[in-house]
């Protein structure tokens, strides 16, 4: 736990590619997202069990390993699925644009927004209202103490990795109709995830939510108003927040 997991971009991409393969046999995006999420989750759990576990306490080693694994995933995807971009079909019901108050908006994107809200809510309830969530929070705050009162911290961390990887993998498939699966998708997604986490604060669900919200809005409006400074606008808020609040907006730990 408390690992800066740099494989997340690669897991997202792996999910997208697995979704592509699943959809060749079962042309249903939601089933593909489930299947890819599950497969990526197993991969994430194994990664935690077999590799990261051995590097307990060695933070730099863990970061380096996750970075290395993400390169390996990227080239393995290139080997299996080739270098050409592969589209993922939008579900037929959501293909047409919708008109809302004079603005044209793709229906599928609205669906993705709705899914994101549901996932955020479920995660919130899981962390705050369930026994599992309480144990995770205890395990993160003080692993020794949690272990002493009988919480299976080790198994818990594997579970968390499983869930995190599942979300990344399923996210790759759900993002697929907008972004397609292509080499380099991992590197395009990872910085966004890092910015969201660092801006919002490590270890805080509310922080991640706020971070994502701020990043999305700042980036979208920034690009529209000052198109030449797209990356400045993306990273500047993060730098400002870190300068004044090193733990991020809602973070428990230093980023």
């Amino acid at each position, binding site marked *: 736990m408390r690992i800066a997991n740099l494989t997340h971009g690669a897991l997202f991409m792996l999910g997208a590619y697995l979704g592509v393969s699943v959809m060749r046999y079962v042309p249903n995006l939601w089933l593909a997202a489930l299947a890819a999420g599950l497969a990526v989750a197993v991969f994430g759990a194994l990664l935690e069990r077999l590799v990261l576990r051995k590097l307990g306490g060695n933070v730099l080693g863990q970061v380096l390993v996750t970075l290395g694994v993400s390169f390996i995933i990227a080239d393995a995807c290139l080997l299996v699925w080739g270098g050409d971009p592969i589209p993922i079909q939008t579900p037929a019901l959501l293909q047409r644009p919708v008109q809302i108050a004079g603005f044209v908006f793709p229906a599928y994107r609205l669906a993705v927004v709705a899914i994101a809200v549901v996932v955020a809510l479920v995660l919130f309830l899981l962390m705050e209202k369930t026994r599992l969530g309480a144990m995770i929070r205890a395990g993160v705050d003080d692993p020794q103490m949690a272990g002493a009162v009988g919480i299976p911290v080790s198994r818990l961390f594997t579970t968390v990795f499983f869930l995190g990887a599942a979300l990344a993998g399923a996210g790759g498939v759900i993002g697929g109709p907008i972004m397609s699966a292509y080499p380099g998708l991992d590197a395009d997604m990872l910085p966004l995830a890092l910015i969201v986490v660092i801006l919002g604060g490590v270890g805080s669900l509310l922080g991640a939510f706020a971070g994502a919200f701020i990043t999305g809005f700042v980036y979208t409006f920034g690009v529209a108003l000052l198109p030449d400074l*797209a990356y400045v606008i993306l990273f500047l808020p993060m730098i400002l927040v870190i300068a004044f609040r090193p733990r991020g907006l809602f973070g428990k730990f230093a980023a």
Partner: protein
Amino acid sequence: MRFTRRKFMQATGAAAAASAFPSFAQAGPMRLGLMTVKTGPLASGGIDMERALVQYLKEAKNTIAGRKVELFVGDSGGVPAQSRTKTQELVERDRIQVMIGPLDTASALATDDYIRQAQLLTLSVAAAEDMTQRKPNPWFTRGTSTSSQCAMPLADYCAKTLKMKRMVVIADDIAYGHEMCAGFHRVFEDAGGKVVQRMFPPLTVPDYGTYLAQLKTNVDGIFLGFAGSNGFRYLRQMNEYGLLKKVTPVGGMTALDEAVLRNMGDEALGIVTSCWYSAEIENAINKRFVANFRVDNGYDPGFYAAATYTEAAVLDQTLQKIGGRIEDKQAFMKAVRSGTFDTCRGPVRFDQYGNVVGNIYIRKVERKDGRLVNRVIHTYPNVSQFWTYKPEEFLKNPVYSRDFPPYKNLES
């Protein structure tokens, strides 16, 4: 064995004779290097380069101008610094005598100095304008196109044939994108049109939603100057926003390449692009190339495969002319610059700066035998990198960029 004066004279005499009458044709195999990309995001094109070159050599029974060919392949991963290192490795360890590649502009620029220093004969695919304009490298030639060489005829076509008056340009925020848009914009405005909006999204932006939301719809068309998979993603998202019906897209030479076309759907139908190649070109060389390539790989060759196949033909025919003497670098470069060549893209020649002069094709996406193809609908013959401008005047201007020529008709 004692070393007598007679033996010494015999030995030196033989050496002198050998150097006075070089018999290069018997000098053993020619060592050919291919600098490509087989890992990372650019690998799709890079792997096609290798496949096309291997096919060419197979068709030539691995013999060019009477000499056996030994092929050495370097993989830069698309990283400029690594491209330079690998080129050096190809030259100094594998002792290559001529190189095809590198694939991308940044790698070509990073290797520029080394090519000069090692006097490495280079047949490149990369599009960087100034490598054959204001800073020509004497050992560098390009048989494909500069960034803007295909965009300028397309602008002419948009203004004169498609009768477009107001257009938007969009491209990746890299030199290649800037140069393409600049060429397009200059010719389009010289023909009486107006570029009213321009956008340069970062190369790695995963989602074009923001750029689509601000796209002007009171225009006749939008020029897509994207590379790699970006044009493909932009078009899909344009379709998703219902914009394809309102704004007509036209594309540069890498926007709707055969490589991305095979993964596209009906949204691509009818889109006009310009390129120095199309798998649909009707000539004997191309027909054989496409047929064999399809048999081996199951898909149509695109930009990178055709580029390498073209360069291999230029290499082959140049060597025929100078009797296979690849060792004579000056003669080789002179022969490249003074000859004409028959290639899969049609007949080509090279200008004094080492850049190709050849046909540029205006193409339209159509469905044929169930797959999407770029059918040629118009040909601009013998287009040079200077379009119809005078080379001297063209070169007096700064190189095409983000801000040159200045965009004067932008509307906010």
